[in-house]
């Protein structure tokens, strides 16, 4: 028996079907119009340099919790991932559980922001956002939800300002940056970060895009477009795909000095594990994190392997540590239908209980 039985007539039919779907898809692409992202109503309540702090409108009929929830997103990519479309919105899910949701949008750093340091981000921008929320809400503490690199930022912030954080939620957050199977970490070990930052100033988003696509080049730059052809006859699916495509390639440049310290301290020196991370004049020690911690990770995460996140267990002094494993990937934890049903309600419930 021959294993490959592609008959000419069937191959011709496949080609014909492909061209037919492309033809139909053209119509839907032409009608796709502008790609909208970020669906939940929000208001800018504070801004500083390129940072904007947004507050999301509480839905009618819901009494917001007294302690505001501040979402600290990564510097990589854009935060509208958390609110990407009507039926796929972490923000919307959190609002539904009664959280008073705020989100930091870091904006797009340019060369004028090259000298902004990790200390400026953590002890400057985040701290002033927290102070603003405390002032506006008349509270002493806020709840923090850090996403990916923003989770690492939130951990550092909580360690340095434990009195200002009531509860900490980390999502797909790297803690041990040198676990086996962490490709990003393996690749960056031999990169001369000082040379890269000294040369480029800021690190271009294109360089990060290339790195992320290089993790699975055939699936991410080839096969997914073939799979997309099957969806082309559905206008909504076309729009959803284009929306995700926009997010993937919407990659801000990284402020050079922050990138330098983050890569060297964490990816190359594994600072949460080995210590030695100094912000301002203080060393970050996760043992200074005493508040309740909810650590959420994705089991199929190819960017932040689950073990990288699970390493947090035992590193803090929290007596109330909870883990939530999500059966999905780094992005799916925000945009999949399963995540809407499982992850966001769980965060809301966990916060409301505390």
């Amino acid at each position, binding site marked *: 028996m021959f294993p490959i039985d592609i008959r000419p007539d069937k191959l*011709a039919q496949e080609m014909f079907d492909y061209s037919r779907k492309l033809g139909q898809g053209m119509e839907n692409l032409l009608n796709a119009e502008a790609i909208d992202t970020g669906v939940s109503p929000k208001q800018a309540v504070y801004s500083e340099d390129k940072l904007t702090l947004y507050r999301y409108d509480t839905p009618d009929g819901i009494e917001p919790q007294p302690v505001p929830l501040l979402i600290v997103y990564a510097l990589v990519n854009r935060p509208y991932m958390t609110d990407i479309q009507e039926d796929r919105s972490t923000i919307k899910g959190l609002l539904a559980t009664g959280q008073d949701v705020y989100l930091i949008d870091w904006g797009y750093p340019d060369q004028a922001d090259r000298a902004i340091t990790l200390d400026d981000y953590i002890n400057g921008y985040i701290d002033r956002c927290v102070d603003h929320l405390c002032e506006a809400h008349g509270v002493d503490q806020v709840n923090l939800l850090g996403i990916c690199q923003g989770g690492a930022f939130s951990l550092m912030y909580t360690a340095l300002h434990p009195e200002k954080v009531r509860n900490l939620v980390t999502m797909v957050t790297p803690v041990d940056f040198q676990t086996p199977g962490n490709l990003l970490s393996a690749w960056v070990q031999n990169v001369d970060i000082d040379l890269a930052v000294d040369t480029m100033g800021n690190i271009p988003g294109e360089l990060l895009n290339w790195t992320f696509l290089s993790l699975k080049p055939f699936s991410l730059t080839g096969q997914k477009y*073939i799979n997309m052809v099957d969806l082309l006859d559905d206008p909504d699916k076309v729009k959803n795909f284009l929306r995700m495509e926009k997010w993937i390639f919407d990659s801000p440049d990284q402020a050079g000095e922050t990138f330098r310290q983050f890569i060297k301290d964490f990816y190359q020196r594994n600072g949460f594990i080995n210590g030695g991370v100094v912000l301002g004049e203080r060393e970050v020690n996760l043992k200074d994190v005493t508040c309740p911690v909810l650590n959420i990770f994705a089991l199929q995460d190819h960017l932040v392997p689950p073990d990288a996140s699970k390493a947090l267990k035992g590193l803090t002094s929290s007596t109330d540590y909870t883990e939530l494993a999500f059966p999905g990937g780094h992005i799916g934890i925000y945009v999949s239908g399963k995540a809407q049903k499982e992850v966001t309600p769980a965060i809301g419930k966990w916060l409301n209980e505390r």
Partner: protein
Amino acid sequence: MSNTPFFNDNWLELQRQYWDTWTDMSRKAMGLDSAASAPTQPWEAAIDQWWKAVSPATPDLSRTFMDKLLEQGKNVFRLADTFAQRDDSAPVTNGFELWTQALETMQQRFSGSLDDNSTTMQRLMSFWELPLDNWQRMMSSMSPLPGDALRNMPHAPFKDSLDRALSAPGLGYTREEQTQYQELLRSAMNYQTALQEYTQFYSTLGTKSVERMGSYIQNVIDSGKTIDSARALYDNWVTCCEGVYAEEVATPEYAQIHGRLINAQMALKKRLSILVDENLGALNMPTRSEVRTLQDRLQETRRDNKALRQSLNSLERRVAALAGEEPTRTPPTALRTTTPVKAPARRRTTKPDA
């Protein structure tokens, strides 16, 4: 299931007839002359022709997207075409020999240079060009030179003589300038070496992926199943390539190749920047180096300024509290702020349990 070969003698003729008819119909529908030169790759030409006809009316975003779909579609059918093109001079006794021959042919093609101009090889290699193409696109976006500017430049025959020339000390009044250009050339050579090493790595992976595909097909045979569509063949090919890739890029060897590529590119770019700065200085214009010094000083000043404002405001609040007055100034964080739209719950939280 069939014991007959997966293509028959009339395959190319059938394919040509099908696409000739399809192309002719398309051309007539568009009012174009059907007597133009006959395409050498009928199905590819038909797809290209259709796209040329409709693409001018397509918005940029959709056009870029459709380009990706078309290119990947071609990859699917090129792969099927590779398996579907039989060498009539080779005696075929059974199906097993046939696919073994097809795999051997693939391996032979992979074992050549990636930059061979052979059309048949490019059909296969175009797939393994994806990671390289990603690198070149990324580099092009960061450089005035095309991303592949140095990829094909032969250097081995001249390396020794160039090394000697570049090691010669500069002389006279322009000694420093000569040294700068020597360093630039040396950096260019180093980058070229690193890029070719990177390219060679993928060439090796191509061979391994064919072996993996062979194992997969053997499993198909053992299971008594067949691959009966171009799409299924493509998906399996992607799985094999992605599997091989994931294993190889996780090795310390690849991490070093990756590091050398990035470092060599950055070193070259840094050399170029130094020369540009030299010329800007000669024209009495601000240099990148000077701008960076200003950026550093400005950031230090802003950092101090923000800290002072916060301290000042804190002191004012203390004074107001001592005097029994409500502070009238805006909060310390209000560098630029707006009031939250909805009135927040003005309730102080209790201290955390921990």
